[in-house]
């Protein structure tokens, strides 16, 4: 089973967590066009390889945080706070 290193509780099994999808999306202004809203809501790079994503430790501390994970090997490269900058 994949293990996710929670930044509060340490490594735990994946079924203690939920994945909240791609990180670092910024919400457009209220006056944005349909095109911009559509892109923000639905369109994603969906990379084969490193993906920056949000996870929440729902069955543990309840914390949201960011995970840099490879979508092919499932290896977690790094974890960082929810408001943290993406790894270089």
């Amino acid at each position, binding site marked *: *089973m*994949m293990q996710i290193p929670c930044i509060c509780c340490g490594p735990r*099994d*994946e*079924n203690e967590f*939920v*994945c909240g*999808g791609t990180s670092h999306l910024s919400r457009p202004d209220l006056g944005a066009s*349909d*095109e911009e809203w*559509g*892109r923000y*809501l*639905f*369109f*994603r*790079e*969906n*990379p*084969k390889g490193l*993906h920056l*994503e949000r*996870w929440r430790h729902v069955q543990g501390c309840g914390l949201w945080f960011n995970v840099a994970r490879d*979508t*092919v*090997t*499932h290896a977690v490269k790094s974890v960082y706070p929810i408001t943290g900058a993406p790894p270089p």
Partner: protein
Amino acid sequence: MKYSAWSLLRGALSGHRHWSAAWADPTPRPSYDLVIVGGGGHGLATAYYLAKNHGITNVAVVERGWLGGGNTGRNTTIVRSNYLFPESARLYDFSLKLYEGLSQDLNFNIMLSQRGLVMLAHSRHDLDSMSRWANAMRMNGIAAELLGREEVGEMAPALDLSPHARLPVLGGFAQRRAGTARHDAVAWGYARAASALGVHIIQNCEVRGFVQESGKVVGVDTSRGRIRAERVGIAAAGHSSVLAKLAGFQLPVTSYALQAMVTEPIKPILDTVVLSPGTGAYVSQSDKGEIVLGAMLDLFPSYAQRGSFAVKQAIIAATLALFPSFSRLQLMRQWAGIVDVVHDSSPIIGPTPIPRLYINCGWGTGGFKAIPVGGWTFAHVLATGKSHALAAPFQLERFISGRLIDEAAASGIAH
């Protein structure tokens, strides 16, 4: 070569030495009218209907691996059309009708078995939502029957129907025309029929880039060289985003792993397909006797064709609660396919933002049952440049306009 009882008999008398290869293995030409990227069911069906319905045979299907080695060979072989919305019902029922005539059309036995499908209701709430679902199907002209507990028991006597069951069966509904088909045979049948009409099927040929001139796609760069084409169609399921990135655009797709597994073969015990939407489990018995278990999605982005233990555990637990007599069966194989999930669980069949590049994707967890209609409608847009009436609501543009077809029934399971 036409397959028939006569050719089988002839083979029996001549040592079966007269069989020829089912499809040709040509060297790619430098250019074609159309190139289809992806040699799974949808890509091969597209090539077949381009040749058959539109008379376009100067077509190549390029496949990175082998035919049907992706999701076409990894699904649980279920075909059905129990959808909620009129647009989806029309699309998937057309697909099921094509499946009903496909063995004759292709001269290849796809082993369609319309053994029926029963959805289980485990709670009063399930009963209500299934009444809605079955009535929506009837409104769309597709037969559905609401069932009581005894009637479910007649369809699947191995279910635990006792009132104290962990997952009590209160009733359900059935689509009698649903069933299973041999998934490999669907890919091979389309490949053979398309090849016989002159389509080139090129395996072990990976697309590494799209050739673009003045903003238009004019071909593909592959591991076997550059192939030019008037139009290019992508039918690559879970890898659609990877190809879209090569061409320079994004899709509203997330790739997830969807798992399935089979047990050792046993004597016939289950002659229908059982789905339990509340638990995400679906169960049938293959013609070889294996119990085929399907799961819900592993809900995090993945391109690994294996699937996680957490979901496996949940599905096996749910299946054993439904069918306690399966508890001593041993699992033989387990795998996952990478499925292209979009927000409204409905497909995308049409143009992309890049001129002359088209895409058929977004089938998510339910692509196998849609192979005939996916091929039919994708061939139509590739041949004519205009959407087929069935596919018109299923355009990429809907993610900008907001006119989604939010087909909660798409996979028939929670997701």
